């Protein structure tokens, strides 16, 4: 691990910020996570660069400090799992369960994300610039997910709260068994899951899409009016025998 002075070409950084590097070709994931977990609130060790991730798992998992971690390369499963407050940027693809159960903070993936991205996450913002695999936002509980490409099948399965904004298409069974989460898809939806229906896009929804796009740095690139809204028909909230085939 080395300490270097901040890069002059990064205008967003505080001049007194210290940056740390971690090379996972030689250092262990445990040491990286232990160092990140040891950060206290207000620490000025707020920028971490991680190189040679090579698909390793649980990188930057369980963070709870307002730091930025930039990972230079593809990550494995559960990167930034249960993230709180931190900003985690992956300059590559991400494996299964990216940002699973995130509570707050921001995760950005420049490439694609595998299955279960943002699974059960409660808050924060997850931005996937490429494609997301199956079950994106499964069981989400309040997170905002923005996907630049498409999402795979069973995305937003049992999604309880939060928003999923997809600039591309959605696969089969979108929003199956959805509760109160809001889904916005700009492209085509292969099929809708049980109790998920298209809903009217009113001004407040377009405003919400704009807000999410802006948070993801995508405002101006696409027109919020091009999105369709999907959500719960609320017919499965109480079991009724006539709906048995939907279960």
């Amino acid at each position, binding site marked *: 691990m080395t300490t270097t002075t901040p890069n002059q070409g990064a205008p967003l950084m505080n001049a007194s910020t210290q940056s740390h590097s971690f090379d996972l070709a030689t250092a262990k994931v*445990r040491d990286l996570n232990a160092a990140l977990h040891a950060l206290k609130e207000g620490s000025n060790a707020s920028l971490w660069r991680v190189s040679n991730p090579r698909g390793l*798992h*649980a990188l930057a998992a369980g963070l709870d400090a307002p730091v930025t971690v930039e990972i230079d390369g593809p990550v494995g499963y559960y990167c930034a*799992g249960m993230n709180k407050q931190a900003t985690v940027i992956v300059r590559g693809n991400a494996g299964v369960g990216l940002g699973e159960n995130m509570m707050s903070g921001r995760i950005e993936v420049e490439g694609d994300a595998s299955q279960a991205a943002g699974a059960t996450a409660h808050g924060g913002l997850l931005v996937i610039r490429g494609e997301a695999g199956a079950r994106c936002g499964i069981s989400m*509980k309040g997170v905002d997910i923005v996907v630049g490409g498409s999402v795979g099948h069973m995305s937003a399965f049992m999604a309880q*709260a939060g928003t999923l904004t997809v600039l591309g298409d959605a696969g089969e069974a979108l929003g199956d068994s959805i509760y109160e989460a809001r889904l916005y898809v700009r492209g085509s939806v292969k099929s809708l899951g049980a109790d998920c229906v298209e809903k009217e896009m009113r001004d407040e929804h377009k405003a919400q899409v704009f807000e999410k796009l802006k948070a993801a740095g995508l405002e101006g690139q696409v027109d919020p009016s091009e999105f369709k809204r999907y959500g719960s028909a609320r017919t499965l909230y109480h079991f009724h*025998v006539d709906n048995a085939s939907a279960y």
Partner: protein
Amino acid sequence: MNEHVKGPSAPRTLPRESATFDAYTLSEIRRAAATGIYDIRGAGAKRKLPHFDDLLFLGASMSRYPLEGYREKCGTGVVLGDRFAKKPIELKIPITIAGMSFGSLSGPAKEALGRGASAMGTSTTTGDGGMTPEERGHSTKLVYQYLPSRYGMNPDDLRKADAIEVVVGQGAKPGGGGMLLGQKISPRVAKMRTLPEGIDQRSACRHPDWTGPDDLEIKIEELREITDWEKPIYVKVGAARPYYDTALAVKSGADVVVVDGMQGGTAATQEVFIENVGIPTLAAVHQAVKALQDLGMHRKVQLIVSGGIRNGADVAKALALGADAVAIGTAALVALGDNDPRWESEYEALGTKAGAYDDWHEGRDPAGITTQDPELMKRLDPEIAGRRLANYLSVMTLEAQTIARACGKSHVHNLEPEDLVALTIEAAAMANVPLAGTNWIPGKTGF
């Protein structure tokens, strides 16, 4: 000549009920026809099953000598989770409180469980709904369940826990998810679970971000990373294929394996699920222990057995078969006051009776335990109930010690399968213990 055999006074056969279409079955068919919905209830399998009652201890005799009570100590402590965790769990007694959710149980009930368990130096477990401050505050050792739904799951509570229990399934419904109906989705429960108030919760039966022991291994790695490798990780399965399930739990990195037999209770699920899926606890223990032994991991990865543990004899038998500890759920609730005859008139008003009440999903529990109703909840005083639980745990421990001493053991863990015999062929085969008075284990040894 034969007029007397006809007419109203002629002899008739007695009314004969069908064993197949018995009174209960007829009532269930009528109920299904009326409502169009499957019957939902709580508790575990209620039908008669081969169980620990079918096993007996041999006790001391000419070749074995007993320990005196009191001065000749019989140890009961157990350490769970020393395979990988920095802070294993140390229990004073080998009986823990099984996972039961806040949501299915009231807040005072969870508090009572915490008080009682802590008084006896053992642990409680959260359930499918997350950790409440009451429970963490009153439990000296708290195991945090990690379930498919992830209701209320958050890293702060994960870090506050003393151990983490990854739930693959439970004995009442191996392959089923949690169930909580609208009447118990109170404002507080709804907030914890991020659900609209008053709706029927639909529950996932698989974890959202892993399927299979190969991926569970990576998930366990993540949980350890998030908690800096401090806490033991348990893996809980409903008894279905306990040999393979235990082996796979070990291979995916578990510190402790929990096997829950079909008598294990649930807050609510379909009656047919409870009675027809999963195997009896008695049939599961030997299989789980054998898997650990075959991997050379017996006593290195600990085994907790649950599902119908009722008294110190059950505890001793589970330990004799090779378990490290047991967990109680239903029994703990009864100790708190569940199904107490003092509420008989109210049970009758609900269409049931004390001892049979299992419609816990309705949230109208007269004892104030399996309810979210503020008025009913007041009926449970957590301090008194906690004291009752502590008494019950104490009795079970003393009973197990008494039996262990009678078998010549200075620690309950020194009980072994050879201290047991079986009363029935089924029990002998399931527990891998000979039929009393013989050397016969069906399928294994000669008579």
